[in-house]
């Protein structure tokens, strides 16, 4: 067997997460490729959530509809997963609680009680699953002990016992159910982390030393990760009273020489819109991580969508450069977050990293990120007396950026239209020069844009076009389709539009846009740029990421 798709489902707070984290840690330890993602309701307890885990011989980076093994913790879990439960789905759990006919009864709680209490039920379940996966018991047990290392010997021992019992019960289900997956030794050196972690590490690699935010799902994930890193890095982390304060604080921090990051979601980002315009006007860098969730307004707070692209691109009033980056996998999450700081500093402009709930919450095994050799440097100059913050004359519109306290000059910035020194002016010629300066940065950034990347058949007839987190499911769907003449053009840099896109589209007979929103916001931008209409748009707005199967089907319907 090449892989197993496991789904855990139950109420918030019921323990899905502990099963998940133990199981994925053990699986990685056993050198399996692991992918995990979750979907959950906007509530702290109760409801019905689920976690999907793929354990595989090969790299897996997307979610699938197929459920090989289902562990329901409640009755509702069965209804919740609905038609994804097929004849081939093995359903294991506590029949007394779940009451599902077709399931194999495995009374986790009763077994846990034998060990010493209901708290061990999760470990029992993990044991049973590990047995089904035929992971070597001793190695697993060491893993379990490692997992509970900080909790002391007693807890370690009890959990090891719970694990063993679970393992035994799993084995007892018989070899017919077992699914031996071959490990991949390469996994040993790999890392396993969420999209949020990747963005946080990328930010650190980009020299981020100031984080401010107002909590908002799913943007909070990166805030929490950075707060944790503030224990080992010189990063100031501050929770602010509201998102307007957040954005203005971050701009103030950049002005004074920090590399600041804000993290939020659509509604919070909307509130920052005026401040984005401020960053544009005073040409101060600004980096925002915008983790998308479905709108409008509060919408579905804990679910996923790619619906904030227009919001980001058109944020703020007036014409000025905004760069929008959208990672499609963990490596891009890391490298684009890092790039965001370099770009913001270089272009003295706002840069947005667009992710989504699916992206930030999902995790998988991936090769360790390549680290830059040199640390980032603040792209600021020591000022001399007479320094003028907005000196005109460069062809790319960029003036050397001073910061207060560094050098003899003074650094004056004003949100009104200003002259080269930063003083208010209403002079028409100066106004036009400053508009031209700001527009020149757009042209310069387009030249510096990360070009889209083509995957699949270079002599394609059908070209799929997407951005951000659809990358992984599209690539797996393409692999599943294995059709010649099919390619996928992926945009990690989505705005301002990189050059040369038209050529890619013109080479295709059929162009299909794929994105996770209701109208095709990126498709519009590509059409505007290229004048080429998409023949179809594959869209989705139900709050979930595409499964590989869903995409496979929707793409093949167009072939």
């Amino acid at each position: 067997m090449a892989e197993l798709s496991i789904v855990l489902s139950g109420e918030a707070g019921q323990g899905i997460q502990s099963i998940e984290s133990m199981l994925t840690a053990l699986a990685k330890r056993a050198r399996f490729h692991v992918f995990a993602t979750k979907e959950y309701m906007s509530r702290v307890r109760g409801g019905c959530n689920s976690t999907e885990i793929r354990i595989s011989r090969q790299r897996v980076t997307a979610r699938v509809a197929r459920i090989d093994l289902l562990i329901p913790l409640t009755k509702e879990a069965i209804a919740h997963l609905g038609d994804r439960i097929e004849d081939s789905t093995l359903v294991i759990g506590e029949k007394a609680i779940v009451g599902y006919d077709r399931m194999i009864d495995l009374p986790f709680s009763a077994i846990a009680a034998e060990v010493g209490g209901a708290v061990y039920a999760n470990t029992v379940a993990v044991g049973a699953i590990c047995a089904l996966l035929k992971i070597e018991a001793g190695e697993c047990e060491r893993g379990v002990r490692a997992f509970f290392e900080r909790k002391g010997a007693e807890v370690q021992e009890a959990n090891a016992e719970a694990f063993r019992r679970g393992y035994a019960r799993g084995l007892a289900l018989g070899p017919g159910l077992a699914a031996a997956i071959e490990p991949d030794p390469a996994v040993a050196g790999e890392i396993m982390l969420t999209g949020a972690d990747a963005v946080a590490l990328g930010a650190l690699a980009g020299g981020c030393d100031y984080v401010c935010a107002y909590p908002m799902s799913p943007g909070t994930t990166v805030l929490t990760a950075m707060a944790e890193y503030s224990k080992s890095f010189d990063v100031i982390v501050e929770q602010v009273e509201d998102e307007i304060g957040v954005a203005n604080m971050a701009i103030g921090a950049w002005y004074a020489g920090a590399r600041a990051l804000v993290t939020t979601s659509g509604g919070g980002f909307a509130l920052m819109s005026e401040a984005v315009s401020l960053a544009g006007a005073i040409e101060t860098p600004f980096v925002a991580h915008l983790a998308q969730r479905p709108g409008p307004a509060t919408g579905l707070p804990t679910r996923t969508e790619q619906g904030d692209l227009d919001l980001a691109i058109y944020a703020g009033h007036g014409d000025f450069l905004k760069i929008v980056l959208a990672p499609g996998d963990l490596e891009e999450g890391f490298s684009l977050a890092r790039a965001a700081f370099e770009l913001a500093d270089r272009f003295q402009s706002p840069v947005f990293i667009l992710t989504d709930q699916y992206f930030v919450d999902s995790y998988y095994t991936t090769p360790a990120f390549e680290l830059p050799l040199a640390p980032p440097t603040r792209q600021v100059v020591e000022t001399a007396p007479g320094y003028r913050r907005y000196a005109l004359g460069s062809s790319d519109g960029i003036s050397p950026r001073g910061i207060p306290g560094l050098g003899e000059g003074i650094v004056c910035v004003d949100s009104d239209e200003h002259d080269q020194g930063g003083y208010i002016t209403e002079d028409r010629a100066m106004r036009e020069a400053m508009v031209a300066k700001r527009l020149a940065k757009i042209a310069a950034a387009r030249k510096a844009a990360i070009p889209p990347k083509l995957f699949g058949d270079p002599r394609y007839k059908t070209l799929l076009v997407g951005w951000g987190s659809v990358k992984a499911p599209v690539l797996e769907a393409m692999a599943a389709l294995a059709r010649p003449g099919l390619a996928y053009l992926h945009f990690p840099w989505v705005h301002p539009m990189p050059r040369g896109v038209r050529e890619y589209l013109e080479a295709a007979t059929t162009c299909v846009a794929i994105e996770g929103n209701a109208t095709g916001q990126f498709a519009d931008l590509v059409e505007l740029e290229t004048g080429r209409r998409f023949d179809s748009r594959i869209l989705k707005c139900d709050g979930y990421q595409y499964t590989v199967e869903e995409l496979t089907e929707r793409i093949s319907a167009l072939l």
Partner: protein
Amino acid sequence: MATNAFDFESKPDISWCPGCGDFAIRRSLLAALQELGIPRGKLVMVSGIGQAAKMPQYVNSSFFNGLHGRALPAATAIKAVAPDLTVVAEGGDGDMYGEGGNHFLHAARRNPDIALFVHENMVYGLTKGQAAPTSRVGMRTPVQVFGVTSEPLNPMALAIAMNVGFVARAFSGDIEGTTRIMKRAILHRGFALVDIFQPCVSFNKQNTLQWFKENTYPLEEGYKADDRAAAFARALEEKPFPLGVLYESAERQPFEELLPAYREDKRPLRERAHDMAALRAAVMAKA
């Protein structure tokens, strides 16, 4: 005026109306900065938008003249990133208590070492005469055509309720008194509010220089500013309004001093290098 390091060689084109109280406040400010001997390169003036908020334009130093109402979050960050700089935030009563009211509340909670000077002219000057949060009940304006009905915000009472460690009221008509209070505010370690009564000659025909003179009095010699509840009682006094430092306490530590980043290392962020070894360790911790 004697030469002042924060003044300009050539007279700036100041856009305030002739007779505006803002000119006097500028004199107090320049004097305070000069007398404190702040190195010119180490001052950042931070403001929003409004007539008062144009002040940084007329001080020869670094400045961050941001958005209407949003001076305080920017100022807080500047101080946090560069604690070696002196940060003064300045703006109008609309700017700081209206649009910026929430930042005022939470800056007070955070307590950054910033001096905040608010020009209380009881009107919106730059936008031509609408009511400010401090406008008195009954004042008619082109928007409040039947007269203001909302209770004027009491900055003294509010700041004392928020436990701000330095709460003072000054009057632009008293340049020296204002200078003195400004100096104390800048020296105060933590968030310091100086609300400055200021006549707007163009749009506030009600709260004139004369009116302020008639409706204020200096706190008595020997007034003890260290009792919060007592200070609150005095803050409720109106017509006449007391002038001076109503409340002062050194109890709270400033925001930036509490930041873990400065526990051991006192250098501002701009002087620090990024730690590549820690980064490598953090990435590999995910293995």
